[in-house]
């Protein structure tokens, strides 16, 4: 399906680059996609993240995606124990970890088996021949050795016995064979650093800090790193040296950030900005657990984390915390979300601020726990009994998780309503360089508790936001009782009155709708504000859609991209935006959920482009789809 050019990279020019002090000339590239793949025990995640750091320091824009095996520790050498890490870096904006890889590093046959399909034809394949033993070949399901049987003829094959080279390199450290073997990943990293002309110093620093308590290990890893680098220098492979110039990025202080960490930090920030303690009620679940892990490390910010007995208790604890005047938050993934529906209804009915974060994964049921998906949108919208409207937001990149978490707290506390923030496994585990914001530039969250007993009742509303008064236990003179039964609009007491019920249902809905005045209008990410085709996405498909649209526009196609971060309420101008295009295409990692909402709301014939494979969109898939629509 893809139409990628059959080259290992996208050369800018093939003449030797000027100004390089390295011993051999480098080919300049616009960018490259590199994937590391090996056994779970091979340390591929460490390799990947160190390569990422060096790439960031080299000034490239980048995006990464780690791909863990579903098993905790599958037996070594098996295909289901393969761990991968992909990075896309370039001298221009990067929006996704890339489709196919230009370079694939495979540490064993199983890694080759499962990853080869993602290497571009003609791409560079680096293989650790030392691991291609008969036993390993068999475990991976190879009858013959692919490094030798000619089956890899379509690729640039670079076989190195990394195992042996590493052992030789670290011999002097005095480590055991087994321990020495563990340094393979740094040897490989050294080689890659040589290929892309990277500075080894920061990684050496990192190694020394990380293994401060095991100096021999530190020493061995540094030796391996240097040996890999030296191997590049000495072996006759200088035609593989590349340079990816710096990307033209906004000045500022940068870091790499992953979605779950960004979410957790966004919550910390919101709590600081609102000057309110935050209570996270959570129950571990892949891929959401890291939000719990990360927040539990920051109690100095007045953050309490409760690992509850289950997801129901987790959301109830968050509701209890909100009731008592803290910011109540719960974070989970699909199956856990399904369990929270009833309690969410209570938060809707009692109009308490509550932030629910659903880091979506493959479903239905237990599904594909380690894979990504966007199939919980309609659950977020409707997964409760009765008319129980809540706000729904979606982050579009790892770094955006930070801002959307703040936004979720802002809307929840301002409107006294539950807000669901949707992210997904792809955002959660992916990383991108992120410009560190100045705390002073973050939005102010101005939260006021009710303290005045004059004329008080708990369902008194702010005429603007329709938010009810937040009156917390312990406040003198504001004693009141709330609950999940219907309440009288004018007193807050239980009411079975028919007209009152309709009024309350409508005011709860209206309150969510009012947020539309308080959120940004829908913008166009790429392209213009009218034309033949608008591609509308939400959540983690942002990068792939944006890049695909950009490429299509570069080919002269009349296509634009809008990305919806506010799913309920939808931006107030969204209907107009959609109306200005002849066709609307909605790519989603589900069977058409946003598409359903848009069609119903605006009666536009939005066309769904579903993908439900536990994998993000490839840029090329969307590009193809757009071309198919516009060129046919």
């Amino acid at each position: 399906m893809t139409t990628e050019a059959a080259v290992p990279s996208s050369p800018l020019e093939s003449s030797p680059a000027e100004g390089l002090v390295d011993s051999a000339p480098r080919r300049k590239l616009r960018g490259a996609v590199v994937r590391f793949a090996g056994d779970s025990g091979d340390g591929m995640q460490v390799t990947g993240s160190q390569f990422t750091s060096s790439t960031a320091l080299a000034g490239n824009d980048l995006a990464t995606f780690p791909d863990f095996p579903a098993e905790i520790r599958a037996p070594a050498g098996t295909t289901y124990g393969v761990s991968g890490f992909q990075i896309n870096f370039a001298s221009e904006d990067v929006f996704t970890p890339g489709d196919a890889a230009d370079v694939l590093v495979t540490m064993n046959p199983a890694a080759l088996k499962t990853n080869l399909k993602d290497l571009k034809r003609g791409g560079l394949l680096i293989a650790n021949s030392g691991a291609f033993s008969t036993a390993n070949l068999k475990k991976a399901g190879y009858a013959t050795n692919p490094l030798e049987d000619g089956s890899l003829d379509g690729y640039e094959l670079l076989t190195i016995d990394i195992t042996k080279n590493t052992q030789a390199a670290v011999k002097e450290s005095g480590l055991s064979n087994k321990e020495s073997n563990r340094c393979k990943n740094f040897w490989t990293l050294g080689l890659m650093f040589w290929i892309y002309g990277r500075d080894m110093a920061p990684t050496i620093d990192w190694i020394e800090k990380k293994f401060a308590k095991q100096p021999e290990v530190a020493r061995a890893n540094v030796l391996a790193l240097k040996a890999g680098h030296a191997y590049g220098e000495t072996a006759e492979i200088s035609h593989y040296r590349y340079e990816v110039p710096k990307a033209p990025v906004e000045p500022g202080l940068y870091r790499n950030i992953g979605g779950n960490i960004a979410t957790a930090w966004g919550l910390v920030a919101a709590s600081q900005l609102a000057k309110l303690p935050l209570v996270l009620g959570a129950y571990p679940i892949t891929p959401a657990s890291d939000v719990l892990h990360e927040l539990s490390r920051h109690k100095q910010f007045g953050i309490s984390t409760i690992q509850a007995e289950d997801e129901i208790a987790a959301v109830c604890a968050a509701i209890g915390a909100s009731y008592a005047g803290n910011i109540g938050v719960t974070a989970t993934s699909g199956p856990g979300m399904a369990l929270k529906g009833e309690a969410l209804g209570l938060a809707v009915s009692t109009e308490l601020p509550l932030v629910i974060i659903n880091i979506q994964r493959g479903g239905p049921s237990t599904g594909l726990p380690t894979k990504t998906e966007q199939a919980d949108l309609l659950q977020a919208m409707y997964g409760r009994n009765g008319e129980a409207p809540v706000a729904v937001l979606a982050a579009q990149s790892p770094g955006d998780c930070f801002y959307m978490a703040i936004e979720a707290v802002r809307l929840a506390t301002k409107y006294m309503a539950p807000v669901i923030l949707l992210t997904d496994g792809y955002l959660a585990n992916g990383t991108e360089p992120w410009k560190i914001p100045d705390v002073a530039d973050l939005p102010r969250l101005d939260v006021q508790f009710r303290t005045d007993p004059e004329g008080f009742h708990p369902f008194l509303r702010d005429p603007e936001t329709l938010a009810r008064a937040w009156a917390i236990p312990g406040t003198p003179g504001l004693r009141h009782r709330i609950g999940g039964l219907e309440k009288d609009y004018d007193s807050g007491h239980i009411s079975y009155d028919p007209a009152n019920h309709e009024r309350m249902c409508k005011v709860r809905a209206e309150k969510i709708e009012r947020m539309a005045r308080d959120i940004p209008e829908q913008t166009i990410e790429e392209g213009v504000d009218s034309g033949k085709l608008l591609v509308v996405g939400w959540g983690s498909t942002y990068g792939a859609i944006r890049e695909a649209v950009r490429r299509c526009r570069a080919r002269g196609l009349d296509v634009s991209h809008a990305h919806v971060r506010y799913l309920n309420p939808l931006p107030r101008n969204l209907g107009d935006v959609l109306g200005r295009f002849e066709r609307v295409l909605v790519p989603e990692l589900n069977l058409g959920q946003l598409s359903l909402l848009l069609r119903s709301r605006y009666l536009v014939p939005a066309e769904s482009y579903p993908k439900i494979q536990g994998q993000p969109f490839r840029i090329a898939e969307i590009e193809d789809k757009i071309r198919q629509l516009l060129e046919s």
Partner: protein
Amino acid sequence: MSNVIQPAQLTRKDFATDQDVRWCPGCGDYSILANVQRVMPELGIPLDDIVWISGIGCSSRFPYYMNTYGFHTIHGRAPAIALGVKAANPKLSVWLATGDGDALSIGGNHLLHCLRRNLDVKVLLFNNRIYGLTKGQYSPTSEVGKITKSTPLGSTDQPVDPASFALGAHGSFVARSIDTEAQHLTMVLRRAAAHRGTAFTEIYQNCNVFNDGAFESFRSKEHQKERQLLVEHGKPLLFGEQNDKGLRLNPRTLGLEVVTLGAPDASGNVVTEQDVLVHDETNPALAYLLARMPFPEFPVALGVLFAEQRPTYDASLWEQNERAKAAQPADLGALLRSGNTWQV
């Protein structure tokens, strides 16, 4: 900020709300409410610092009738809501009103974890051995063979004893009383209020509409003395019209038996008070034995079966947070800039 001044000494009336109490006439819930409203003023806790939390059931309407803060939540979840309330504000005095269905059927898991964590809340379980609000189905405390709307041929489920469950769950305070026995109930409520940690108090409550007389066999004037064992820490376990019956233990088999003071036992030895077990509310095994005595062969043990002081969840959480705050400044900018960064 507020100009409302708390009355120096609260009275029972201060705890009543203006809401009509909507239990069936004659329901045991009324007398529990009255007793609670009698005891609360004694505690010296300002009205504004008290929160009543409940699930769903007749019993769970309790918060509406208490002039404190109140949260009538969803079925079975009161302990989980309370967990968040106490995490946010451990200074609040938090009371839970729950039923046998609410606490032990749908809510069993939350109660288990509340007990083992020792969250500092008082749990009043109104055990009427029936689902009242849904109009008469059997509950997890209903006896085998019970004929109810959902068991026209008699229930086949074997019940769970709430106190036994609470002890198994490492509850730090386990007590029992009866709706209408004002004096005893008041004493138990006082003890519960004074306990730091989960004060689990089961109250036998008559549902005169769907399970009338469920406890008559030991609650009635006629049987009271012979069939209630009022336990008190440090006092021998005696009961009976003449207070001359007691519980004795076989130390090798750990079997309990009822003996009569001054009368010869099975082996012909005359029983003295020395033979009778002395209640030690700090001994969980004794509490467990007392909680599970078969009735009517043995009396029903009432009072504080077990009480021990151990750290509460909310206090530990709070301390940990405070320690973290003392150890590190809350510097958001520093957090964002921590780890590997680079300047462009």
